[in-house]
Structures are given as C-alpha cells and as structure tokens.
C-alpha cells in the first residue's frame, strides 16, 4: 500500500495505482481532467497532457520533487508522495496551455456538432481554457473520408487521443483504421477506402472524447440535451446488452454504452445493440439514467430526480424526492 496526498487530501492505495486513479478515488474535486486516458483500454493515456500534475514530494524514501510536471494517468504513486493538481499554479498554467493547443485547430463547430453537450473538449475548455483565441491562422482541414454507413468521421475535430485505435486493437478482431501521417498532419484514417465495420466497431463512438467519431444513425436528429437517457438491457449473445437508450418523445434516437462518472463506458456494447435495436420493444427499460447536475443533458428533464450530492447551498432548498413525488 502507498499513502499519497493530492491537493492536501490523503488516501492509501494499492501499489501500482496511478496518481490519476488515486485522485479519482479521493473524488472529482481533485481528479485531473483526461482526454486520452481510458481506464478500460490498455496503454491509453499520456498523449493529451491535460492530466499533468506537479509532484512536490517524490516519496517518503526520496522526497525530492519531480523536475517536470508528470502525466498523472501514466505515473504510479509512491508511498509518501505529495501531488499538486488544482492547488498547483504550475499545473493551472500548463493545463491552460494544453487546452489552447487542443483548441488551436479545432473547428469550434459545436453548433452543428452532434457531440455538443457531451463533449469532453467543451467541458475542458470551459473549466480550464481561456475565453479568447490567440491565433488568426487558418485552421487545419483534412480530406473527408467515408468510413462506412454507421460511423461518421470528422477529422477536423479529432484531438488524436488514440482511444479509437486502441478499441480497434483491443476489442475488435482486425483493425482497419489507424493514425497515418506525422506531426500536425496526423489523422485517423483507413488510408484506403474502407468501412470500419465489425461487431464492436461502434464503440469508437463512445470512447471518442470529441465529435470526431459520431453515430451516423443519430446524425443531426437532435441536440443531446433534448433527448432523455434511460437505462435498458436485452439478452444479447455478443455483449452484456446493458445500454442507454436516448429518447425524444417515444422514439429511441440513439443507443450507447452506459457511462460512469468519468465519462467512460461501463461495458462495451455490440453493433447490433447499438445500431439495430431502436424500438422500445427490443429492450427492458430499467429507469432514467442518473445524469450529472452540471451536464446540459440534465437540464429541465428530471424535475423529480434524486438530489445531487454536491448540491449543498442552504439558501435554496431543493425539492426532496418525497416532496417531488407528492408534487
């Protein structure tokens, strides 16, 4: 076991835990943001640099601070380690820089992007970015490629997190897409005209932190905040069959994996569940999905929903569940 202190809060974690995992165990207040790390994908993380933290004390044994900021998703804790995340001005500065880099060539086409409302880059720039841009250069564009009937690729929005490549490597049989070219010309591509299509390929949509890979069957159908997610399941031979159905009125517009509080799917789902089962009758509905209060998706939907734990303002007394039910 190792004792680690992050932003002044201490926790004891098993050896081999990363700083990021330890921070998540403490709570979302100290957990660094992530854009490329994905706990369900091996070797993910390290690329985007949004989760950089400052190690002010290496360990009990060797208390020297680490000379550079480190990627918390790829650095293991040591016993006695002390880490600064939100409390470190260096981290705040560096993170601001990373956000600026990630947005430098981003098209900012949120108004027409299906990911808007559940986009990690939106959240990141809102929380850690600047309200102004300092670049007046033309933004990078790519030749558009078609990767099949189900998945839409918008390369201009991609931040090169490599998650979709890892999904293809780790949970599908046979990878046909990857990162081609180099440097800022790098792009997700199949290189030759080819569809990304196999039983589990749809998961690239769920892991994509931005709107680079979206569900073609949901394209332009609705803003996500006008849809309402419910938990549902079905007996599926290929996957767990546990999903979120996204309703607009009575219609299922979209099926996705269920996501945890870090925005990661709990279990990967198959393409049959995702693309081919869009009738309520295909599913056993369990109930509404818990949505973080800060998410725009929660807006106006659940007048009678569980009181969010982080809601502690005394001046506004929220409706209790009982009261809500009575109302």
């Amino acid at each position: 076991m190792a004792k680690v202190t992050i932003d002044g809060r201490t926790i004891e974690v098993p050896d081999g835990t990363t700083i990021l995992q330890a921070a998540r165990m403490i709570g979302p207040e100290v957990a660094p943001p992530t854009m490329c790390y994905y706990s369900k994908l091996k070797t993910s993380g390290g690329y985007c640099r949004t989760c950089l933290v400052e190690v002010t004390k290496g360990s009990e044994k060797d208390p020297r601070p680490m000379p550079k900021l480190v990627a918390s998703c790829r650095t293991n804790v040591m016993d006695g380690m002390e880490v600064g995340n939100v409390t470190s001005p260096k981290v705040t500065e560096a993170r601001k820089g990373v956000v600026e880099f990630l947005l430098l060539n981003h098209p900012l086409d949120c108004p027409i992007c299906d990911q808007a409302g559940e986009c990690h880059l939106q959240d990141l720039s809102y929380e850690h970015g600047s309200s102004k841009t300092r670049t007046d250069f033309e933004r990078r564009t790519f030749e558009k490629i078609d990767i099949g009937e189900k998945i839409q690729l918008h390369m201009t929005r991609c931040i090169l997190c490599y998650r979709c490549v890892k999904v293809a490597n780790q949970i599908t049989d046979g990878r046909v897409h990857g990162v081609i070219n180099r440097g800022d010309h790098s792009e997700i591509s199949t290189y030759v005209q080819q569809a990304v299509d196999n039983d589990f390929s749809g998961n690239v949509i769920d892991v994509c932190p931005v709107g680079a890979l979206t569900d073609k069957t949901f394209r332009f159908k609705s803003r996500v905040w006008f849809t309402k997610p419910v938990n549902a399941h079905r007996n599926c031979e290929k996957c767990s069959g546990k999903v979120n159905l996204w309703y607009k009125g009575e219609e299922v517009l979209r099926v996705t994996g269920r996501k945890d509080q870090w925005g990661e799917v709990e279990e990967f789902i198959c393409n049959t569940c995702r693309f081919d089962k869009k009738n309520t009758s295909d599913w056993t509905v369990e109930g509404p999905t818990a949505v973080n209060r800060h998410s725009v998706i929660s807006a106006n939907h659940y007048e009678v929903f569980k009181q969010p734990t982080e809601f502690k303002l005394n001046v506004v007394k929220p409706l209790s569940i009982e009261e809500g039910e009575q109302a």
Partner: protein
Amino acid sequence: MGKKILLAHDHVPGIQTYEVYRKHGGYNSVEKAIKTMSPEAVVEEVKKSGLRGRGGAGFPTGMKWSFLAKPEGVPRYIVCNADESEPGTFKDRYLMSRIPHILVEGMITSSFALGVNTSYIYIRGEYFYIVNILEKAIEEAYANGWLGKNILGSGYNLDLFVHVGAGAYICGEETALLESLEGKRGNPRIKPPFPAIAGLYGCPTVVNNVETLAAVPFIVNEGGDEYAKVGIGKSAGTKLISASGHINKPGVYEIEMGITVEDFIYSEEYCGGISNGKKLKAVVAGGSSVPILPADKILNLANGEKRLMSYESLADGGFGGGTMLGSGGFIAMDEDTSIVENLFTFARFYHHESCGQCSPCREGTAWMEKILHKMIDGHATLSDIDLLWEIQAKIEGNTICPLGDAAAWPVASAIRHFRSEFEEYVKNPKAINKVTRMAV
C-alpha cells in the same frame, strides 16, 4: 595537436578496410576483453573512464550500463543509435564512413560487457550508402571470427545487424528508435519503464550513440583511467565536433575537451576563423536544439574567463547565459546572418519532425513555425514576439519526449539574446528583407 582517440588513424590510407584497421590495433579490445577480462570488469573500466553519452544528453555511460536489468532467461540488447539527425551534426556519419570497424569493434566489446547476444545498429535512412559500408565491415568481422558463434573460442556468441530507418528525426530519441526498430511509427514511449528495464521487444536494452560505443575500444585497451586523464574534469575524453556554417574550414574535428571556444573557432587546427573576413555574430554550439549564444557570450563566461569546449563550461550561466555541448553540432553565424530567419529554419524543422503524439508539441511546433513565417512575410506585430515566447514556454517540459524542449529552446534563446533584432525585423520588414538571403 590534441589527443586523438577516435580519429587517431583517420588519415591512414585504407583504414576503412579490415586489414589496415587490424594492423593498427583494431579488434585488440575484443581480444583483451574476451580473453582476459570479465564482463563486469569491462563495465568497471567504462565507469572509471568517465565517458558520457555522446548523442546529446551526456549521461554517464557506465552508469547507464549498470542500470541494465539482467533477469534470467531474458535476452538483452544493445542498440547503437546511428540515427544522427540533429541539425548541425554529422560526426557519426563521418566516423562510420571513414572507420566503420571502430563502431563494429566497440559494439562487440560492449555487447560482451553486457552479456548481449544480438545487437543492432539503427541508422537513419538518409545514410543508406553507409549501410553498405557497415555491412561490409560486419561481414569482415564475421569472416575473421570477431562475430558469430563461439567468438575466440570463448563460448560467447554475438550477432550484429544493421537496421535502416526511413527519415524521422524523432527516432534519435531512444524509445522512438526502439519503436521504429520494432517496425512501428517512431512515437516515443511514455516512461517509465526505461529501456534498461523494458526496451526492445520488452527486453532490457541499452541504447548508445555511435561515438560513445566507438570510444569503448580505447577504454578497454588503455584502461578507464587513461581515458579519464584526457579532457577536463567531468568532461572526460575527446569529443567529435561537427563544425559548419560561416567558417573557413567546416568539418569534423576530434577535440580534447577543455580547449577554448575561441581557439576552436579561430585556430588553423580547427575552424580557421570566420569566412570572408566577417565577424562572428552567434553560435549554436551543440546542435539545433541547444540555446543560441551571441559571440561575446559563447567566447567568454560572465566572469570574463574564456569559455571552454566542455559540458560544464558550455553550460555555465545556465539557460539564461549558457548553452550545452549537446551532440557537438557547432554552427557558426557571421554578422550578416538574420537570427530570425535562421530560427525559422529551426522552427520549420521541428514542426516537420514532431511525431504528433502529444498535443503541446504537435500543435505548438506548427504554431511557432507559422508565426515566424508571418514575421518573414512582414505581417507580424510586436505582440507576436511575446506570443512566440509564451508558446515555447507552454511546450517546454510538458511533452512526452525531449523534442518539445528541443523545439522550445532555440526560440527562447533567440528571443532572449536577440530581442531587439526581432523587434527591428517586425517593425521594418521591408528594410530587412532587402538584405535577407531568404525568399520564403
């Protein structure tokens, strides 16, 4: 004349061939090590020698070797980094094309020291013609029993192969090099683990520069103490310096560390002064990534003493007032050189060579190049100088591998030492563009 270790026989006719090389003491270190020394004793000599990595970082070689993990039943590897790509650096190419056997010999002796049975030389693709030279040398070494099975009847086996890259500066970074050698994109790995624990194919691996490995035969033959006597302080031994730019005698020079920078630039033995009788304006002393220094700062230390060609003296003054020995890529610029435009060539280089894996480097290097391009086009404003400064600061230290730092430092140092020139350039681009040599 200073002591020569690597290029001692450079001017011997036919030194490229096995016969001549052998006649001049070639392969003696293999014989001595295998017949009379234990592997540990060889490592000990290298430690004593004070030899430091000649690729740029200057990390003590003996210490690097001692980090190598040696689990039972797992192969270990030595990979020679011959991916020389740092702008201003061409010493390894010179050494490999002139005296290929010194590298082969160094690799055999080093492999023996670390209990390695397969070694690779990773050479940059642009040096394809040297592949032929090296492969011929290796073939000769096999034919004469220095490589293969049961070397000198000792029971020690070693295979040595050349592996050619295909154009990527980033593969000079040791983990990118290993990825490339595994047949992948040259994306640097996230460390830890370090190659000494998990390198090539996940096995313990040492990656050393050509010049580093080539110094091993002397150390084994003459002893680490003898090597340590050459040079100055912690800058033991000799260093190959690639001299280029506005000097009378560009080329590769083996210097004994500790000579003055002034002597190196102006003496007939080395660079022979600035060409066309011009004055020296600035020097990039250790390859494109190290801080550029104006003439007075490269020649003299802050205390008025002369600056020396050594790791410590070149670094004297820290990042504000000093630079680094780096790979020994010494680029001299005369009084007519535009620092802004030279910096543009560096920025363009790093943009071109960024692997694109992590965001600060991928986006930042491209951004810096665009801003410098805008300056040269005459459309920049004074605030762009500050912006450049801030971008480099946001890249430095925040990337997966040192390429980010390497791209940031030239920008930081050029602005630090030549800010007024940047301002002039921005204010009056037309006047400057009249005398410029560059048409972008």
